[in-house]
């Protein structure tokens, strides 16, 4: 991103409602309208203001998540019209479960993208960690699942730290290092299958019930509702209290209406999700209902990543480095160290993604297609709205993008369209999503100066 505000003096024409200038300092030369367009959440005084600014921002190109949500709805309507099975409870829950792997892999990739880097190895690195974990908890090792998981995920983090160290210390582009990783860790993955005595025909079966239940197990319907109530209740309480406290201190806060609206929207989405999951999606004689465990797990990882990126020094520095490594360096940030840690986090999250993958399929095999999955991971983050050029993106972006990809894959499969067709359709959506986003942005930029 470069400057979006052009010659400031040229835009001084629309001076109506100029902010009050004390002390006779020359007034801000940006028309207030433009300011509101760029940052409505901090500048709007009321809910009405906010919504107006928000609408202006969408028209002006700072589109945020809205186009992707609209796109998702359009795709869903299209598939529902084509096949009435699409919006059945069975299929929707199935779709969510399918999406979790790409969503998590996208969240992993987000760490690299935020730094303006790329990690092509996330697929195989994650698979190596998951294979180690599955091998350790399977026979003949029979480790407890948590110990096996810790070792597997630690292996991922170490691999990430190693790649990060090579990238930062030897100053080799991340593209090259992780491209080598893409090849090399696939080799290591095959090696893990060779060494593990529990692997049969290049397949390690998920033998542990906890890991198996991650995807195939469900919470009881009542537990689903209670968890939703607790989560949304906590979210509402903390965000309202936080807003109130900040307002009391005289700090800038979004209008109360916005806080309530966000909490309300989250609540409604949660209610719909739990309701759909609690519908019977089995047959009459053996009903299946309840939220699959993997969904709260993904939400937990999303919250953890959001927290890390927004509330910790590490997260702040990742954004800073992504926007301007030079500014970060001059601010005294240890850029190489932060980048290395980010690559370790990237690989670690990829490990979690691969565990979810193994849980869904009940096994992990030597044929794991890490080369393709990493491309889906990047696509998920970018379709969702994260920038390929660093500094912009939130964990919600791979979530939305992953849902889009899963919806396409799922819907096209329902329509009996071949893998070839699915790949082509995903490619088109990727291009369209990025094109729409960048066109809107460009229009916003040229339009913003007038």
């Amino acid at each position: 991103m470069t400057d979006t505000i052009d010659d400031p003096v040229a835009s001084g024409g629309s001076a109506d409602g100029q902010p009050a200038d004390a002390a006779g300092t020359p007034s801000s030369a940006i028309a207030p309208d433009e300011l509101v367009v760029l940052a409505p959440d901090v500048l709007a005084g009321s809910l009405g203001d906010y919504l107006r600014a928000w609408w202006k921002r969408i028209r002006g190109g700072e589109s945020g998540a809205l186009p992707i949500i609209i796109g998702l709805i359009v795709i869903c309507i299209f598939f529902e019209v084509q096949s009435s099975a699409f919006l059945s409870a069975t299929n929707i829950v199935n779709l969510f479960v399918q999406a979790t792997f790409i969503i998590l892999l996208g969240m992993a990739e987000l760490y690299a993208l935020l730094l303006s880097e790329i990690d092509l190895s996330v697929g195989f690195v994650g698979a190596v960690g998951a294979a180690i974990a599955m091998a350790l908890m399977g026979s003949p090792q029979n480790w407890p699942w948590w110990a096996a998981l810790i070792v597997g995920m630690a292996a991922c983090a170490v691999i990430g730290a190693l790649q990060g160290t090579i990238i930062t210390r030897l100053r080799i582009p991340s593209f090259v290092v992780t491209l080598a990783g893409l090849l090399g860790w696939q080799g290591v993955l095959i090696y893990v299958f060779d060494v593990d005595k529990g692997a049969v025909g290049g397949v390690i079966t998920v033998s542990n019930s906890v890991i198996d239940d991650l995807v195939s197990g469900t919470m009881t319907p009542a537990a689903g509702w209670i968890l939703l109530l607790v989560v949304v209740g906590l979210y509402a309480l903390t965000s309202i209290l936080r807003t109130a406290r900040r307002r009391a201190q005289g700090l800038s806060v979004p209008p109360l209406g916005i806080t309530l609206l966000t909490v309300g929207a989250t609540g409604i989405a949660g209610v719909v999700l739990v309701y759909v999951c609690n519908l019977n999606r089995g047959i009459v004689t053996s009903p299946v209902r309840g939220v699959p465990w993997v969904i709260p797990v993904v939400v937990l990882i999303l919250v953890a990543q959001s927290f890390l990126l927004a509330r910790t020094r590490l997260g702040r520095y990742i954004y800073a480095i992504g926007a301007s490594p030079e500014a970060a360096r001059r601010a005294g940030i240890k850029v190489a160290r932060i980048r290395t840690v980010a690559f370790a986090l990237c690989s670690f999250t990829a490990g979690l993604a691969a565990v979810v993958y193994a849980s869904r399929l009940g096994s992990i095999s030597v044929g794991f297609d890490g080369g393709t999955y990493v491309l889906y991971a990047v696509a998920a983050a970018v379709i969702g709205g994260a920038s390929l050029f660093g500094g912009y993106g939130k964990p919600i972006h791979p979530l939305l993008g992953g849902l889009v990809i899963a919806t396409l894959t799922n819907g096209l499969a329902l329509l009996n369209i071949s893998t070839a067709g699915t790949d082509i359709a995903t490619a088109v959506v990727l291009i369209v999503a990025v094109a729409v986003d960048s066109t809107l942005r460009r229009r916003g930029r040229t339009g913003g100066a007038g």
Partner: protein
Amino acid sequence: MTEGAPLLELRGVSKVFGAVRALDGVNFTVPAGRVTALAGDNGAGKSVLIKTVAGLWEPAEGEILWEGTPIHFHSPNDAEARGITTIYQDLALCDNLDIVQNMFLGHETMRRGLLDESSMELAARRTLDDLHVTTVRSIRQPVQSLSGGQRQSVAVAKAVMQSAKLVIMDEPTAALGVAQTQMVLELIKRLSSQGTAVILISHNLNDVFEVADIIAVLYLGRMVASGPAEQFDREVVVDYMTSGASTRAAAG
């Protein structure tokens, strides 16, 4: 600190690049709380001089005294630790971060291991108020949405926030329009009135004469004139900048 010593003093500082003497026995004094303008044509050695003060390079000869004590900077961090902040033309701001986040970048206030946004925002607002930077609508807007002058203000406020005693500004008004330039000049005056010394590097003599208490002119690596701004007028400074001497006035 030696009593009565200037904030910064360069004595006979030279810097050689190959066959070129970029700085040749430069004497330069910067008193506390004043605005010192450093003028000179392209290639006069202004950048070399400020980079030496900022700790990027060590002088080949001569010494640098900070508050009366000889000092050696091995890196920009050494200089920053002593309270010398340099604001280059690129400002070193992160577009995607808001004003508060930029002002505290690398020096975040933490509370129980987490970023303490509340106290950072309050402190940032206090600093901006002290500097009379009142034109920003919200200090939570991303720097990307600011005008050029406002960005300068954020960069200056960041330096003040980190308790700089000397702020070196490299052509701060070069890319700005008239109103924005005025805003930055007001800011420089405010900064020095609060006791922070400023070295202003500028081609623009309007700016120099508006804010400078002291004017120093470099010509081909030598300090050819320096003294209180009242001793100079525009023609004299131009003479010094272009030929290294002036026959017109009785300046130093």
